[in-house]
């Protein structure tokens, strides 16, 4: 493992920012830490970078214990949310800074600065001051500065937080391309689940100073281990019911079959909105109910419906739309709704 975090605890007075975090990142892997505000993402990143010393636990970089090592001994490149470029230095001087601190010879510095600026497509911007660049360009300078010295690990703390959506999307792809090209082990922070799904090899979902689950994006989406993960990643219907003899009684849908081996008792079931069908399409579905449409939202390639089920409770349905399709239902209308049982996922720690 390139990076291993073992049992990290960090308290600020009464607040426990990190309550025992374990995490492994493989060489060349892009791992995203996803979590709501205040969940401890930045604190974890700062612990890895060396700006925070944990109360308990260890940080290993390439097998070496660096828990107490100062930041400059760790060879870690970091991009801050607000870029933290040096405003009094030109773009080239900013990018050269980590090389100069490592006392690289002057011609090597020059060559590598040019290379790094080319890598982020900012050739010819070397003489400008940071304030003469747009937000996206500043972000790319920060990125060039963080990778120019060939760090063992790249840390990115919500690097696109301040950018508009279009720019965000193009930078997401650019960062991913750069990361693959340089085979950089990367720890990326975001609270945007869509961003996490797009960019990551694996995602670690964090809540209240703990890691809830780690896994590949598709895996987390389809098989969330906890209610929090199911809710935080994508849109979800979480249905509470009680299991007996391989079936669960769910208000509004009656008894639905469960995967084999499910013990009796209370269960939480995850049903993604896109698994639901309504009206005529629902007829072919094994599990069916009926509900009143409370609200419809047109989203272009799909429509989102909020429905009140006849047996009680609400569900969210997402229905694919072709350009020629009429609106799937009107608000206030009562329609059939159904799904296939294989689309149900039992949330283990509901």
């Amino acid at each position, binding site marked *: 493992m390139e990076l291993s975090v073992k049992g990290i605890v960090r308290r600020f007075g009464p607040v426990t920012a990190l309550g025992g975090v374990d995490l492994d990142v493989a060489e060349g892997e892009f791992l995203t830490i996803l979590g709501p505000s205040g969940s401890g993402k930045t604190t974890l990143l700062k612990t890895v970078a*060396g700006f925070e010393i944990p109360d308990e636990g260890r940080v290993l970089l390439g097998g070496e214990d660096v828990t107490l090592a100062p930041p400059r001994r760790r060879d870690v490149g970091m991009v801050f949310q*607000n870029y933290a470029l040096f405003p009094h230095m030109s773009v080239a001087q900013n990018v050269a800074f980590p090389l100069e*601190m490592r006392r690289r010879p002057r011609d090597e510095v020059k060559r590598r600065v040019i290379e790094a600026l080319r890598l982020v497509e900012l050739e010819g911007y070397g003489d400008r001051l940071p304030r003469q660049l747009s937000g996206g360009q500043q972000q790319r300078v920060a990125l060039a500065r963080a990778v120019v*010295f060939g760090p063992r690990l790249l840390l990115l703390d919500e690097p696109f937080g301040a950018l508009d959506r279009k720019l965000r999307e193009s930078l997401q792809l650019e960062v991913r391309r750069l990361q693959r090209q340089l085979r950089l082990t990367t720890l990326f922070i975001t609270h945007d689940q869509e961003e996490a799904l797009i960019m990551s090899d694996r995602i670690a979902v964090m809540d209240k100073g703990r890691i809830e689950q780690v896994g590949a994006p598709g895996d987390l989406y389809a098989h969330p281990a906890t209610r929090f993960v199911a809710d935080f990643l994508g849109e979800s219907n979480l249905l509470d019911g009680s299991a007996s003899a391989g079936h669960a009684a769910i208000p509004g849908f009656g008894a639905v079959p469960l995967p084999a081996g499910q013990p009796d008792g209370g269960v939480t079931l995850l049903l993604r909105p896109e698994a639901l069908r309504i009206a005529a399409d629902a007829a072919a579905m094994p599990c069916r109910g009926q509900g009143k449409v409370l609200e419809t939202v047109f989203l272009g390639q799909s429509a989102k419906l909020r429905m009140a089920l006849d047996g009680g409770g609400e569900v969210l349905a997402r229905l694919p739309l072709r350009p020629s399709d009429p609106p799937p239902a009107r608000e206030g209308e009562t329609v059939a709704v159904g799904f296939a049982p294989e689309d149900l996922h039992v949330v283990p720690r509901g």
Partner: protein
Amino acid sequence: MRRRRVSQILLGLFAGLVFLFLLLPLAVVFPISLSSASYLQFPPPGFSWQWYQRYLDDPSWIDATIRSVKVASLCTVLAMGLGVPLTFFLVRSRLPGVRVLDRLAAAPIIVPTIILSIALYGVFARLQLIGEWYGVAVAHTVLALPFVVILVSAGLRGFDEAQEQAAAGLGASWPAIIWRVTLPQLRPSLVSAAFLSFISSFDELVLAMFLSGASMTLPKKMFDNIMMEIDPTIAAVSVLQILLVAVALGLTSLFGRGALTTTITR
């Protein structure tokens, strides 16, 4: 829109009046320094360079000028050398009680200079520092330190500490961070502080009267000149002094873009 125009004109008029008030002494002193009369008379009866000539020919004036430049320079170096690290401590330290110390740093401005002079006279007499130019410089440092602390702490408070973290993460040691990242961005504050330290010493009379003894600084020499023989030499010296300050001010704005203005408004 009209309202705004009127208020702008009024503001301009006000500023003009204040400037006139500030420049009025110069408008009197400058003509007198070129007077042909041998006593202070305004307006002067005729033109002559004689008072400048007299200043240049009199070694006691030149000595006093050189001494004052030396005193002010040493005072600036000492005030900056002590004041900048002190300010870092006052702004950055999380020790309890530092906030009180922060206020105390302004004490020399509040204590009447004459009290300070008497106190320092006692100390300096015992140390046999009376009449030594560097003794005066040390005393002036006490007066200059508050300027340094006030100006530099304003700059330091406006500085984004995340940059120091970024620099550390990029491999910089503490000295490198301070020297390459923090201090360059404090340059306007530093230049302003150095300028004010220099001027406060160069222009200082009360401490110099008590401590400089026979080896006079320029303000002391001017004071003595007025007491003994009132002639327009003093006007010529004043004009030269003003020119020197103007040059220093020019250098300040050259090396500390935004110095003396941004540090305070930021």
